[in-house]
């Protein structure tokens, strides 16, 4: 694991020692190399996991998320170049340092073997994210967004700490690998229910569960591009990852404690996607679509069948790449029209045809066109919920329809229609931007060829 942790740490001195005109290129190239190293973890030879040390391990659940994290850093660096072009050199370096720090924490979170270590790193990721949002956001609302982001997640996760300490006391270890063998079924009592709540709430807020999702649209909208990308792509997946890890602790309780949360998710999925239908703000639309997709993951994790776990893992990776791509596209519009309002950017297909192609592909993956991995994820989740209860197909079906509608609504509003006068003098799309979109789509398409890589441990 040190193979990627140390290079990531060394990104910081690289940033500060680079010549002014080389900081972006150096860090991007170097982080891309790191991400290539992490690809080897996708090859999980044994059934269980790859142990690196007493502290770190990966298995087929965390390896795809790990690869996604490392893959995203170069993309974030590429995406934020324009955003920071007017800043001073020190600030640029500070910004890159923050992104690197975030990546460092995320790598360690996904590969931590101990729950307490996981918890500490899980909380540590808040710090760089908060700095990125509140320092480099575009408007003053970013402070409010940062506040929401911090408080929702902190309030959610503090009970987890207590629950973990309690479990450590009872069990003697919080090691993921040992836990599988040591775990006792929880007694059916009030205190166990509170334990369940304390353990799950931290991740439910992070996912976010409908009702506790208010921080997400705010944070997404106000964050700079790299912040939105990493939030949508990786930080939300921390929740799903944590839930899948911790449900082993809570074994018999989940089957009935899950009901209210599943109902909330199923309901929230439709609510949030119908909010998307009325959005005028592009970034907000993408943020709400994330909430709706993550609701599917919550449902899938709570159902706890092999198929649903596979669906949840696949959907997390697919959504990570897709939503990050959508944020990049939204940002490329924002850099040209200086507004997040969709209607101001209409008819861009005439001016930027290649960008329109990226938009089309992004929308199609977002509405989960077969045979992309988005479809695999969604289909598995739908099948799992259908077997859980046949009636859910109506809700799932409604959500499928609305997802298709708002994805295409987004596409049509931004790309189709007559070109307006004020966009006629915009810059053409840069190679950097096209490369950015291509690097998002490439893994999506390649993974469709071999989806079992991201189907998780139960596959």
């Amino acid at each position: 694991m040190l193979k990627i942790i140390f290079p990531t740490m060394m990104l910081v001195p690289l940033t500060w020692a680079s010549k002014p005109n080389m900081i972006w290129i150096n860090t991007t190239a170097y982080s891309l190399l790191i991400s290539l190293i992490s690809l080897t973890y996708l090859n999980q030879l044994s059934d269980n996991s790859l142990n690196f040390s007493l502290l770190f391990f990966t298995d087929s659940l965390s390896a795809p998320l790990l690869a996604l994290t490392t893959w995203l850093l170069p993309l974030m660096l590429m995406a934020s170049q324009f955003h920071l072009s007017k800043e001073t050199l020190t600030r640029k370096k500070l910004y890159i340092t923050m992104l690197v720090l975030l990546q460092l924490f995320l790598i360690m979170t996904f590969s931590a073997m101990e729950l307490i270590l996981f918890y500490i790193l899980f909380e540590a990721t808040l710090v760089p994210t908060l700095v990125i949002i509140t320092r480099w956001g575009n408007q003053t609302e970013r402070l409010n967004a940062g506040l929401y982001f911090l408080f929702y997640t902190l309030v959610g996760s503090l009970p987890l700490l207590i629950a973990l300490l309690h479990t450590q006391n009872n069990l003697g270890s919080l090691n993921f690998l040992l836990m599988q063998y040591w775990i006792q079924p929880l007694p059916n009592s009030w205190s166990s229910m509170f334990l369940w709540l304390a353990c799950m709430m931290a991740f439910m807020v992070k996912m976010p569960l409908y009702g506790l999702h208010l921080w997400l649209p705010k944070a997404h909208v106000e964050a700079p591009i790299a912040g939105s990308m990493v939030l949508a792509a990786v930080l939300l997946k921390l929740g799903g990852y944590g839930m899948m890890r911790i449900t082993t602790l809570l074994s018999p309780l989940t089957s009935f404690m899950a009901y209210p949360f599943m109902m909330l998710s199923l309901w929230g999925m439709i609510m949030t996607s119908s909010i998307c239908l009325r959005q005028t703000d592009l970034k907000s639309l993408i943020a709400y679509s994330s909430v709706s997709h993550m609701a599917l993951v919550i449902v899938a994790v709570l159902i706890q069948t092999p198929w649903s776990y596979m669906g949840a893992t696949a959907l997390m990776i697919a959504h990570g790449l897709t939503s990050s791509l959508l944020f990049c596209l939204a940002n490329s519009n924002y850099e040209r029209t200086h507004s997040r309002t969709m209607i101001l950017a209409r008819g861009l297909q005439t001016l930027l045809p290649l960008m329109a192609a990226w938009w089309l592909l992004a929308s199609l993956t977002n509405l989960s066109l077969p045979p992309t991995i988005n479809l695999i994820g969604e289909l598995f989740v739908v099948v799992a919920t259908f077997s859980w209860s046949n009636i859910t197909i109506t809700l799932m079906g409604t959500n499928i329809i609305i997802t298709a509608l708002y994805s295409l609504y987004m596409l049509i509003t931004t790309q189709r229609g007559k070109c307006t006068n004020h966009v006629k003098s915009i810059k053409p799309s840069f190679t950097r931007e096209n490369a950015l979109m291509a690097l998002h789509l490439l893994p999506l398409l390649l993974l469709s060829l071999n989806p079992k890589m991201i189907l998780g441990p139960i596959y």
Partner: protein
Amino acid sequence: MNLFTSSIITTLLMLTMPIILTSASTHKNKSYPQYVKTTVSYAFMISTIPMVMFLYSGQEVIISNWHWMTIQTLKLTLSFKLDYFSMIFMPVALFVTWSIMEFSIWYMHTDLNISHFFKYLLMFLITMMILVTANNLLQLFIGWEGVGIMSFLLIGWWYGRADANTAALQAVLYNRIGDVGFIMAMAWFLLNTNAWDFQQIFAIEHENLNIPLAGLLLAATGKSAQFGLHPWLPSAMEGPTPVSALLHSSTMVVAGVFLLIRFYPLMEHNKTIQTATLCLGAMTTLFTAACALTQNDIKKIIAFSTSSQLGLMIVTIGINQPHLAFLHICTHAFFKAMLFMCSGSIIHSLNDEQDIRKMGGLFKALPLTTTALIIGVLALTGMPFLTGFYSKDLIIETANTSYTNAWALLTTLVATSMTAAYSTRIVFFVLLGQPRFNPVIIVNENNPLLINSIKRLLLGSIFAGYLIFHNITPTTIPQTTMPYYLKMMALAVTMLGFILALELNSTTQTLKLDYPQNPFKFSIQLGYFPIIIHRLLPMMSLSMSQKMASMLLDTTWLENVLPKSISYFQMKSSITVSNQKGLIKLYFLSFMITLILSFFVLNFHE
């Protein structure tokens, strides 16, 4: 039999070549459309080899290669099912597409992105081929969705127009509703039969198949524009005419019928779903035929006639004759594509005029188009010994002699009569009488691209039915003997429709109605469907999402219950608790209390 599978694969691979070669320089020069067209024509010729072999030997083949993944007990591979339906359908679709592509070289020659357009058309065709040859549900779903998305792109080809975008979105929306049914069927089959491969699904006996079959019926309703989910089909006329021709003849809309035909081994034992299918089809065929009666847009009339014919195909499946429905798909492809191409030729010649009231007298100006149009219309109505006759007449005869409910039968017969009526109306208004178009327009149809493509389909519209009919193997044998009046019924109602429409048209030409009658309003407003469904439902759902989901729940309740109320209570309680209000004397006094207390506590302990 090696030639059989390899020539099929050659056909399929050939079609992908122009797309793969995009990165080469071919697409940049002018000849790309020509190249695509030639590829499709070669693919057609090669695909006839396995068809003939199949007809000779009757051997069904499944090609299974490239193992995609195995999920627990479900093995997913890339596999092709080469049975009667796919073997016959492939050459038909390729033949029709070949002509349509040649036609669109002529029709779209002024478009700057013509190469792009051809790529879309080709991908549309490829997704349809995937759908037709798929041997498992997932692969079928890939084709199914691919067809839907490609139709979105093609209908919205003129993306500057708001109408085109709306129509494209409508197509996707209605198809997506159908997809829910498809996904439900997939989920059900997975859970109950643990298989997505057709042969395995059909092999497993199951008690109650209502749920998956209802899902498939919903899917077919969406894709084939059956009653309830039909409005996207006439709206899709916003796309370019070649797109309409392709969409309505051999791709997309027949996919739904094709799906039901694929699943006939399950459907033939399920009476509930059969009755539902029958009623749905009958309702569609009557309703859309009624809508077609009063339309003035030439493309809309033909579009509604497609919808009506699709209803007829669904009726055929409802009376448990999937092979006849398939025959009708094949024959319908020829004359419907040709009708659209004729209307395209007319529209193009008259400077994009689509209103039949502004045409007239074209039989002198456009002789070939006129000939083709008349033959197409006659084939559509089922005139004896044209292509449509072989399928349509047989369908109606079979319906007459089967144990079907009288209501559905009557509805179908009325719709058949109406088919003749609106066909007459097209001929009467477009071809006969005095010209009503602008006299300065130069009408010209002497372009080999146009003439050859129409001619080819013209031959198809005359002979194809005969050829395919002689190679059909019906599963349930139709009645061979029947009373004289039942035998003549189809022809009689068609003639009745012709005569009535002709009489009405000639008599009302000079009459003027004071006010529109109610049936007329019903028909021209498309059964009030767009007004009610397209206004009320979106308004309700959108205002629901605005008012309830967004404003009430997200920005009011959730915001106030958690963050706002917490901060409010914190503020209130901190104000209440903190008593630092500037009362210096009191504070010092309280110091005194502490001092005195400490004095007592410290000094008087034991």
